């Protein structure tokens, strides 16, 4: 049994689920269903669960396509950490391609996107629209790490 890459802070209850996926399109569905099962268990509404599913799907797809360049031997690691305030989802790739930080800040221009060959760039924008907090950083593996947080309304 290998050690989990992520150690949760000590507490009464450890609500951390770690998922390792091959970098192949289709596996993002496993992350989506894991996310929604955890979010439902935590009491998120259907709408919020749907938003989370979409955001997780975009983040994992980005990691597969861009970060790991579709190399199925490379892993995407998704860590779900639940607390009384909400759910944190960390998506890390192994960084074959490091994310251009300017992408994380801009809002895509629909006219420009429609006329360019690259139809990408919407994923990150969408994730930021759907989630309460989004952060980009470098994963311990050296890859890209995207952290998104969804708050429980109380």
């Amino acid at each position, binding site marked *: *049994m290998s050690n989990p890459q992520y150690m949760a802070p000590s507490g009464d209850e450890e609500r951390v*689920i770690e*998922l390792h996926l*091959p970098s192949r399109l289709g596996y993002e569905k*496993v992350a989506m269903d894991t996310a929604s099962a955890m979010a439902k268990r935590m009491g998120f509404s259907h709408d919020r669960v749907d938003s989370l599913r979409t955001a997780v799907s975009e983040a994992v797809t980005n990691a597969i396509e861009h970060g790991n360049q579709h190399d199925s031997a490379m892993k995407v690691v998704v860590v779900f950490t639940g607390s009384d305030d909400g759910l944190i989802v960390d998506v890390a790739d192994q960084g074959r391609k490091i994310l251009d930080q300017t992408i994380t800040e801009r809002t895509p221009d629909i006219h420009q996107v429609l006329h360019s060959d690259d139809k990408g760039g919407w994923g990150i924008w969408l994730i930021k629209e759907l989630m309460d907090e989004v952060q980009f950083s470098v994963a311990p593996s050296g890859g890209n790490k995207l952290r998104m947080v969804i708050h429980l309304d109380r």
Partner: protein
Amino acid sequence: MAQTQATIELIFPSQLGYEKIAREAIGTLARNMGFDPTRVEDLRTALSEACINAIEHGNQRQTQRRIHITCTISRNRLVLVISDEGLRFHPSQEIETATIEQKLAGLASARGMGLMLIEQLVDECGFLPSRPGQGNRFRLAMYNPPRRHGSATA
């Protein structure tokens, strides 16, 4: 999805309820592999039982202990290995010798019903030999098309 062999790992705390999240994740994988819905349900039930055993028995419900699921999929086969931290080893001998009638009549421990159920639901199942420093490792496999009630192999 799953043209060649791929490995997915899922790690979660030893707390009842988390097996439902594992069930969603692995159910999605099995569905995407083309298993028919009845068999996906069988797999989901078998996995839940195996996880509950690992949580209650192997890890003695100590939430900081982890359950580790390794799922290996190839074109026609899905293999799950459910590992715990082995605070208590599984008395598999006792379980194999008692019949369900004996259990129901109170002549044998009511524990181990889960294993009997798992045997009915999947193509192969059984404990893997223990390795030093490892806990219980329970393996179950399903084939598409099915190989019903094959012998339990390690």
